[in-house]
């Protein structure tokens, strides 16, 4: 079968470039272009007559449409034009001119297409006799289209870059997979580095750096105008720990420290912070605590538990602890450095008074007076 297709839209295509126009030569005889040959150039062409009935289609489009592409089927029954909207007849298509169309097959999976429609035959009058020639390609969903319709390399024109694009899509996915794996590795490394930087390796408690960060956060939590949420700062120093180390060795000392950490964790709440800030020194940040009585009770409980002998193989080690406590509510400006220094002073009072004690340092005057300058002389 050889169906002549006369492209009558030379005016619409514009004049040929000068370099091609000279020397004068015969325009190519397009009547030699059979649908078969046309299908080699454009495997997804669609030729419809003036009424919009399909006359011929390229091999790839036939494969994609399957049974829906019967000879004589109406273009608009086969394909929906999605952009521009409201194109429902051949006159709309002619009026659209030589601009890009977005289309979709009506049959599932409603494969998306792009295309252009070329008017055929003698120049269009009010009632054009010629049909139209459409050339289609896959849109952005090309990878899905290739999968859904089991297309192969041979389904694309030799000049078509679709296969290169599929290659790039897969290469990009492989590279993204590598990047994703790398991100996960970096994230894990980052998290463990942060945890290591903020943790005391022996006890698993927070270290001094973590304590500083937590105190900064605690005093800033109230914001500029609001009051800082109240918290208590307790400084704990073990008593008789040096004797354990000297008598039973450092391994025994480490075992005692681990046991102390366990007790402190057990006696505090989840949102409190327990930090080991020196050999046998600990700091507790007790959030939402401003009742001296409750704090004193907690302190006594901790001391009592610390005094229970720790069994180390055949021997038992006995220690105790002294605490010094300050309350954020006693400060107009609860600066961490100042509070730590005051808690340290309170601790020394406990030590001085015979150890195994809890001292809560309270100002003698109401907080307002802390601001008042001390009169000289």
């Amino acid at each position: 079968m050889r169906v002549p297709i006369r492209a009558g839209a030379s005016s619409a295509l514009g004049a040929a470039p000068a370099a091609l126009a000279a020397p004068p030569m015969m325009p190519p005889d397009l009547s030699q272009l059979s649908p078969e040959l046309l299908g080699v150039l454009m495997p997804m062409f669609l030729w419809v007559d003036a009424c919009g009935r399909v006359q011929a289609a390229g091999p790839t489009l036939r494969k994609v449409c399957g049974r829906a592409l019967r000879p004589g089927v109406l273009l608009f029954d086969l394909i929906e034009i999605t952009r521009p909207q409201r194109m429902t007849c051949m006159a709309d298509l002619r009026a659209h001119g030589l601009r890009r169309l977005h289309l979709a097959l009506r049959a599932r999976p409603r494969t998306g297409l792009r295309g252009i429609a070329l008017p055929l035959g003698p120049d269009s009058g009010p009632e054009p006799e010629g049909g139209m020639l459409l050339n289609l390609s896959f849109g952005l969903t090309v990878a899905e289209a290739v999968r859904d319709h089991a297309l192969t390399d041979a389904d694309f024109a030799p000049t078509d870059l679709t296969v290169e694009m599929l290659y790039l899509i897969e290469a990009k996915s492989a590279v993204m997979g590598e990047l994703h794996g790398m991100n996960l590795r970096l994230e894990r490394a980052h998290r463990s580095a942060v945890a290591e930087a903020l943790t005391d390796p022996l006890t698993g408690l927070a270290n001094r750096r973590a304590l500083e960060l937590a105190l900064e956060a605690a005093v800033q939590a109230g914001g500029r105008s609001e009051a800082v949420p109240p918290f208590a700062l307790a400084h704990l120093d073990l008593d008789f720990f040096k004797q354990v180390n000297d008598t039973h060795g450092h391994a025994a000392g480490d075992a005692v420290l681990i046991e102390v950490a366990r007790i402190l964790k057990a006696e505090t709440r989840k949102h409190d912070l327990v930090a080991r800030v020196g050999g046998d020194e600990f700091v507790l940040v007790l959030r939402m605590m401003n009742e001296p009585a409750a704090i004193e009770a907690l302190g006594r409980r901790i001391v009592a538990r610390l005094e229970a002998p720790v069994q180390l193989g055949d021997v038992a080690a006995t220690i105790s602890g002294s605490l010094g406590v300050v309350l954020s509510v006693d400060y107009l400006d609860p600066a961490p450095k100042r509070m730590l220094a005051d808690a340290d002073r309170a601790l020394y009072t406990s030590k001085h008074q015979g150890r195994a004690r809890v001292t809560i340092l309270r100002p003698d005057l109401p907080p307002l007076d802390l601001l008042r300058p001390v009169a000289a002389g």
Partner: protein
Amino acid sequence: MHGLVNRSLQCFLRDTYGPDLWGAVARRAGIGPDGFEAMQIYDDTLTETVLAAAAQQLAKPPEALLEDLGTYLVSLEPLRRLLRFGGVGYADFLHSLDDLQGRAQLALPDLDLPALHLVAEPGGRFALHLGGGPAGEVMARLAPPVLAGMLRAMADDYGALVLIELPEPQATPAAGAIQIDLLQARYAKGRRFHLGLPIAEATP
């Protein structure tokens, strides 16, 4: 050297010989056990150091390791698919190698693979010339055995029977082509390949 190259060497050693072997190679080469990141550029000499360390540790010639690396690369499905894009038959695939460096550069502009040029000779013989392109000296030295391993593995994938000969290491560039004898294009049933990704793999 692109980290992807170093990382593929690392993954090959780890997956083939186990993490302990990789750990020993990393120690011998003086790098951390985590090894390489895929998207970094490393000094070229580091690749050769790791290869030499692995060759010593496994008591194998480095060329043999590189050939096994080529086979390993084809065993990775995403890479096998990329290579199968080259064509429907093994001869098509060989011809598509001319585009390999260009395609790789589209995806990864700084991968710097050597340019490949295939010359078809009568009687189903092919000569694959390496050279030119952006590849550095080390890449140019390492590439031929890796390619030979890949070509063998791809022949299995296509079901083709081939004979592949590497050039002598001291060969002049002109004589330094990989010789491929395509004895039988359809010797065995090859593995299946569809241009479209199966759904399970398309949606990670």
